[in-house]
């Protein structure tokens, strides 16, 4: 038995321990909250939310942009690892892909519920309806439809292509233990993979190709969300720099979540050998770099604000930076730009106690940034009408908490049912390392 395959496959095949069961139970409870919140929005309409003029987007778009940011950064990380042929170990890309997939599933709830008439979401798809009405391609709703659909499908494909050979390994492992039902299930999903060198050659080409195409897709997915803001006339949003700002400040969230997940995974599934200190170093430094990039984005925002001649745009920015919006704005700067800088300290990078909270707080910081844009961006508008302010309702908090539970549940199940790290890539790298040692 290969000493590479065994621990990883075992993690997926052995029965769950109490820790796993407890987490599963908690997630199920969270899922119940999600179900109730979704039902409330479907039955009562978006009126059950705190949304009102001018706050038509509120919590919904905050969470949507936030989840897409997490998905993007996680996919970006996975795609970069796949495209790097040599050097650092690529074992962590598998669960980065899984995290991206789970985040998109969570994100997909929001735009559909936000429609108000969720069952009519298919009206954004161009099909010959009996009404003779066709979608308008200038509408951000239509962009959203294509954006989310492509994002979900491409991320799933990216994850699945990499998984096919490992599913074949799981099939053979399960069959070796006489668990034929499980072996048949894995076998169907493995599509008859037998490890032919010819197949491997084309498989690697397809995997890299999809990884390369994930990069422009990510840029676009977050840009489309930001474009929806930029195409409005709200002074704080109607800016050419907004897409860039949203893409760059989104990075610490996804990378931070992947970092926290990596730390939890290596402890919970005893995979320290595969997700080793070198991986944690790379991830920690990446989160710190993403924090630096986000810091530059904030610096750019302030610089552009000072150079701005339009008094209203300037007032809108000042309201966010020094006015009523200051707590969210500076909270975002502190959590997603400043806090990750701690990860430059070597001793902190290797401690789960430090990296898990830093990673998750970076993600929380990005959520504050989205609040600062979506809610506080409306503090100053063209009409000096009375701004009633925005207070999220329990249904909105339930939706946010529920999607977080959904995200955690999907990842728990991925960690249990499919190999959490890429077995074939780890095998390959260990064999290369052995060959190098022999040459010496």
């Amino acid at each position: 038995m290969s000493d590479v395959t065994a621990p990883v496959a075992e993690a997926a095949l052995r029965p769950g321990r109490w820790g796993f069961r407890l987490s599963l139970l908690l997630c199920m409870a969270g899922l119940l909250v999600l179900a109730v919140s979704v039902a409330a929005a479907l039955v009562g309409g978006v009126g059950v939310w705190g949304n009102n003029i001018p706050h038509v987007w509120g919590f919904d778009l905050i969470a949507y942009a936030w989840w897409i940011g997490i998905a993007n950064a996680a996919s970006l990380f996975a795609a970069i690892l796949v495209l790097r042929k040599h050097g650092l170990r690529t074992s962590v890309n598998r669960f980065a892909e899984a995290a991206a997939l789970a985040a998109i599933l969570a994100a997909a709830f929001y735009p559909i519920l936000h429609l108000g008439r969720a069952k009519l979401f298919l009206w954004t798809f161009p099909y010959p309806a009996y009404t003779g009405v066709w979608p308008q391609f200038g509408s951000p709703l239509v962009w959203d439809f294509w954006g989310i659909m492509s994002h979900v499908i491409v991320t799933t494909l990216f994850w699945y292509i990499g998984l096919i050979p490992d599913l074949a390994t799981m099939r053979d492992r399960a069959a070796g233990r006489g668990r034929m039902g499980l072996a048949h299930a894995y076998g169907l999903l493995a599509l008859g993979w037998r490890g032919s060198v010819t197949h491997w050659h084309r498989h690697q080409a397809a995997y890299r190709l999809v990884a390369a195409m994930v990069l422009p897709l990510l840029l676009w997915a977050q840009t489309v969300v930001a474009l929806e803001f930029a195409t409005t006339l709200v002074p704080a949003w109607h800016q050419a720099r907004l897409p860039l700002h949203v893409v760059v400040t989104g990075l610490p969230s996804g990378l931070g979540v992947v970092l926290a997940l990596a730390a939890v995974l290596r402890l919970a599934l005893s995979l320290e050998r595969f997700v080793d200190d070198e991986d944690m170093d790379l991830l920690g430094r990446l989160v710190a770099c993403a924090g630096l990039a986000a810091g530059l984005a904030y610096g750019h925002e302030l610089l552009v604000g000072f150079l701005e001649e339009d008094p209203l745009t300037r007032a809108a920015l000042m309201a966010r930076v020094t006015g009523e919006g200051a707590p969210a704005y500076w909270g975002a700067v502190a959590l997603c730009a400043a806090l990750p800088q701690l990860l430059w300290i070597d001793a902190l990078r290797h401690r789960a106690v430090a990296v898990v909270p830093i990673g998750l707080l970076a993600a929380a910081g990005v959520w504050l940034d989205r609040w600062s844009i979506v809610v506080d961006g409306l503090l100053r508008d063209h009409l000096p009408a009375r701004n009633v302010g925005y207070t999220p309702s329990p249904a909105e908090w339930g939706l946010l908490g529920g999607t977080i539970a959904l995200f955690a549940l999907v990842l728990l199940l991925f960690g249990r049912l499919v190999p959490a790290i890429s077995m074939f890539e780890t095998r390959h790298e260990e064999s290369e390392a052995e060959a190098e040692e022999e040459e010496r």
Partner: protein
Amino acid sequence: MSEAHGMIAEFDEPEALTEAVRAARRAGWERIEALSPFPVPEAAEALGVSAAPVGYIAIGAGLVGAALAAGAAYYISVHLYPVNVGGRPPNAWPVFLPNTYLVAILWACAAALVGMLVLNGLPRLNHPVFFARGIQRATEDRFFLFISSEDPLYAPDAARGFLRGLGPLRVTEVRER
């Protein structure tokens, strides 16, 4: 006694597999298959496989997807359902770009997966090599070279003799069990 599907040799190193593939090509065997738990590009090269068609299929599908998406957006906005929004022309092509771009990527990625599977002859429910003893380790840590009985040169003794000469761990005849 069931019919023999071919002869299979088992190796424990990727280099041994690459050498075996090269030797088999030199000896004129045509219907051979090399199995490995991870990509062995040198062996694929020795077999003369090119991965380029996967790329061509993906690029072609991406272009077709883009053309369809842009064409549909144009036809719907200009002919089927023109709407005057603030006097903008029906053919406001810049707003067609977001979904054209997304659909192109979507088609290219789907075509990369489907193209890879079709070129590989997958999915399939069974294959003769799955009858070989110990083949489960082809997805773990062992390397196999299979000579199909459909090979024009195939004769059980010749195939066994040739594979034994490569210094494998063992050589077995593949039969239905």
